[in-house]
């Protein structure tokens, strides 16, 4: 594998070029050396043969006259280490020990036996000295061969680099484009890429990238449009792949799925949705989720299987999430209203029917009571009359609750209204040692029915007076905010614990009369576009906050 990776175009060209050139140079060098070797060997042999022929001739010509010793002395005077002379028995007459050893080894370059003394004349070759001499003689050739080899390889390196470099640069550019195709542009392809073929290749790449850029631009535009549509849908949209991975999600859906404070049967919306994805059929009803404070969210889920196009083999799922909380609440309120209206009519009819006999009963007891002598009986009659009055009062409340009085809305300035209510209760408050405070910005106004608003404040102040003890304090405040007015009635009474507060809120929601007339307050506020919030804690008093849309006093005409 490593070998295959190293077999790049450059290396292949290099191996081919260098292989051929090196082989040629080596062959040339080898032949040259061999020729030198052969030539030197031939020279040595010829030299030896000539020497031996000369000695033989001397022996033949002068041997008998001068004797063996003189001939040997003459040979010794030649100082030739290669010359070895042996007698007929093989004893060394002349020559070095090394020479005799070479004769024994058979390293004899030339030999002569045909002489008058029967000597064996040998011319030996010391291979090591011969080789060394050869190297010295051939060093220029060897050096030139090595230099030629080096030059050949260097040329091969540059040639292979020169050929492969443009291809490599093109490949590097393509790899870079492959890593970031969205940033592909023709400018990434190098222009100076050597030969005609690589230039053609580069041009073709540039044209392809030009096309790719146009295609990418169109695709990006289409994608942006689609994303824009998905983002701006009034629904949350999530697309899941076959493996459950989220492929696409718009901001609305992200926000809904990110909310993990609302639960349905202990599961967040995300879990509910994921569970539904695995189900064969999807329930049609909306999902109702609640948080710990009793707030409710209602979502309508739609699930579609994606099975077209490229997802044919592995279908995904498209989910829509519609927040229908407001619709559901409104639906419930309408139902509640209708129910209340019916109950109201029934109650009014009933109240009307009860009031008449009650009036009779009261009058009769008053008459009877006057005739009674015993104090105990008179007290009993008075008690019965009080109870009848209380029933009458309850019936009056019931009638008020059920009766829809026609509102007469107008721009109501709050500062005088608060002052008026405070004045109404100033005496009663004074008697209980309660301090009444009013704070309101001058000119702060809302569009409402003044009488109903006054009724609201009276109910709340009345509740406050009941809640605070001797030396307590009740504050009526009106303050403006951006586009809204906050009206509040605060007392520093005992306050309510969580349980009690929840019970009061449930009473208001169910439309009951309750102990504090808060249902009436709630209904009146609703009629006048106000929202109520109760803030209370044990020992910390109670604050009823009411928010209205702000109206300037000059808006009277426009409204």
């Amino acid at each position: 594998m490593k070998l295959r990776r190293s077999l790049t175009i450059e290396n292949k060209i290099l191996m081919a070029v260098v292989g051929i050139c090196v082989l040629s140079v080596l062959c040339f060098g080898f032949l040259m050396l061999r020729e030198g070797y052969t030539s030197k060997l031939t020279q040595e042999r010829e030299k030896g043969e000539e020497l031996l022929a000369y000695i033989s001739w001397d022996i033949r010509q002068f041997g008998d006259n001068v004797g063996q010793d003189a001939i040997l002395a003459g040979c010794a005077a030649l100082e030739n280490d290669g010359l070895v002379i042996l007698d007929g028995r093989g004893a060394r007459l002349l020559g070095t020990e090394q020479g005799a050893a070479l004769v024994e080894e058979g390293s004899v370059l030339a030999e002569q036996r045909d002489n008058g003394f029967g000597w064996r004349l040998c011319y030996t070759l010391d291979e090591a000295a011969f080789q060394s001499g050869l190297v010295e003689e051939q060093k220029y050739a060897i050096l030139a061969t090595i230099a030629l080899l080096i030059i050949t390889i260097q040329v091969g390196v540059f040639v292979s680099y020169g050929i492969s470099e443009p291809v490599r640069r093109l490949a590097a550019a393509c790899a870079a484009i492959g890593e970031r195709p969205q940033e592909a542009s023709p400018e990434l392809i190098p222009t100076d890429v050597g030969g005609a073929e690589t230039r053609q290749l580069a041009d073709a790449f540039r044209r392809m990238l030009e096309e790719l850029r146009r295609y990418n631009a169109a695709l990006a535009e289409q994608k942006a449009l689609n994303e824009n549509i998905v983002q701006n849908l009034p629904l949350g949209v999530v697309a899941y792949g076959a493996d459950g991975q989220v492929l696409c999600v718009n901001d609305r859906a992200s926000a809904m799925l990110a909310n993990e404070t609302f639960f349905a049967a202990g599961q967040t919306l995300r879990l509910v949705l994921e569970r539904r994805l695995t189900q064969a059929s999807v329930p049609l009803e909306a999902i109702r989720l609640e948080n710990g404070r009793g707030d409710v969210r209602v979502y309508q889920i739609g699930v579609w299987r994606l099975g077209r196009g490229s997802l044919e083999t592995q279908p995904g799922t498209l989910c829509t999430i519609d927040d229908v909380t407001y619709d559901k609440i409104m639906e419930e309120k309408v139902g509640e209203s209708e129910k209340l209206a019916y109950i109201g009519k029934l109650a009014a009819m009933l109240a009307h029917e009860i009031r008449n006999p009650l009036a009779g009963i009261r009058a009769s007891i008053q008459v009877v009571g006057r005739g009674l002598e015993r104090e105990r009986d008179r007290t009993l009659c008075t008690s019965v009359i009080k109870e009848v009055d209380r029933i009458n009062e309850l019936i009056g409340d019931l009638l008020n609750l059920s009766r829809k009085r026609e509102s007469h809305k107008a721009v109501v300035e709050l500062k005088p209204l608060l002052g008026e209510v405070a004045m109404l209760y100033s005496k009663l408050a004074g008697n209980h040692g309660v301090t009444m405070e009013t704070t309101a910005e001058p000119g702060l106004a809302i569009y409402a029915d003044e009488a109903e608003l006054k009724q609201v404040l009276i109910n709340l102040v009345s509740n406050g007076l009941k809640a605070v003890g001797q030396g307590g304090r009740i504050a009526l405040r009106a303050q403006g905010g951006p586009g809204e007015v906050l009206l509040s009635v605060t007392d520093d009474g005992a306050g309510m614990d969580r349980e009690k507060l929840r019970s009061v809120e449930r009473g208001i929601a169910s439309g009951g009369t309750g102990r504090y007339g808060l249902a009436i307050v709630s209904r009146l506020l609703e009629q006048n576009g106000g929202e109520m919030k109760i803030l209370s804690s044990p020992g910390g008093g109670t604050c009823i906050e009411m928010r209205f849309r702000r109206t300037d006093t000059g808006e009277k005409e426009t409204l």
Partner: protein
Amino acid sequence: MNKTLLYLIYFAAYSAILLVIGKSSLRDSDSVGKFFMCDRRLPLWRCVCTFVGTWVSAASILSLTGSVYESGLSALMFSVVPWFLGALLMIHVSGKLYATGVTTVPELFRVRYGSKGLQAAFGALLAAVYVLYLVIQIKGFGIVASTLFGIPYSLSILLVYLFILYTSFGGYQSVTRSDAFNLILMIVGLGVLLVIVVARVGSLGGIYSGAAGVTGYAHAGMEYATEAGDLLRPFGQGDFAPLMSISMFFGWGLGLAVNPQYAVRILASRDARSARRMIWISLALLAGIYFTLSSIGLGMRVLIPTVNETLSTDEILTYILNNDLYSTWSGFLLFAIIGACVSTANSQLLLIASSCSCDIVGALWPRPLKESTLVSLSRGAVMAGGTLSLLLALSPPASLLTYGGDVWGVFSVTLLAPVFGTLLWKSTTRTGVCAALGAGLLALAVFYPLYYEGLLPVHPALPGTLISAGALWLGSVLSRKREAEV
């Protein structure tokens, strides 16, 4: 084995390694940043290797060792001490130099003064000086190759072509890799040689005690004889006389401090801290190398008090290695010297290339040149610079050590004041730099002939550098207001 055959085998092996290094580096040099600086990504050890490899040249190994053999430790006062003092100055400006972010030293003047003319002028100066200095490496290579193969010097210097051009074509990557290899070769070679010398003398202390007693002529070509104790004296005779040695600080020392071959290595470091560390580590390594070289020089003199040949200073080491101290290792040691020559030569060829392509052509060409064109131009400049130096090396200087000091002195006289002024003195102006360059060139023209005639008792770089610095100051002071207004 036959000595020549053994050397040929070493030659083939050395060539094969450099071929592999050169081939593997070609790919990493397709842009100017990569070709000259490796994109400033070299690890510290490679920076140190190339710094030391470039520093230790033929002048250090052949000439310094030969000078120690001839004249003793006084050669160190003439060369090594100024080099180290110069290196300390270099450390002082390294941070400021690195912060400029330039690729070549002449580019500094274009960046600072917006003058392409100054960049081109300094580029031409650098190219010329390095062509001259390259002669040292080619001569060193030639001496060794001639000794190795017994071939004529004029033929042996041709072999240098096989290595220096090839290793320079791959740019800084190739140069630093071959520098690392050559440095390892050199350290091992010098270590082995020191061991051989110490073993023959008896002990390391024996070298110094023996050197104290050496007398007589070092070789037949010496003009003066060594007296007992001369070899260990800080100052000697001739070039190593006190006044000349001290004034050589202005040649060797300041020339090294401002030398672009080291400045480029500072600029090519990863950051300023790495650059400083590179210099400090290199100086520690160099201290060891110079101790080894001086011990070898003295040890050889103790072993062979007189060489019975007429030799030049630069030939002593190779002659003794190949004769009196010959062993199987000799070829290895001689190739270590060749490695030192190659590693310095290819660095300097690269500087010739950057000066020609980036500083001269790049600055004066009317349009910005493509990176690939600049790289091709650089390779052409490597070829041209190498060939020119080769021709000059046919008649080489007598002593590489004194010649090198003279060439480095050109840098002291012309480049020191402009570079240090630009980096260290905020008031330096373009006019000041021009004045320093002009005055420096004039000083070279006046003082160098006097020096070679023997009429100047100090190195000409001393008055030249002072005149150049004075011109820089005067020019800057006079033109400061005018240039500030511009």
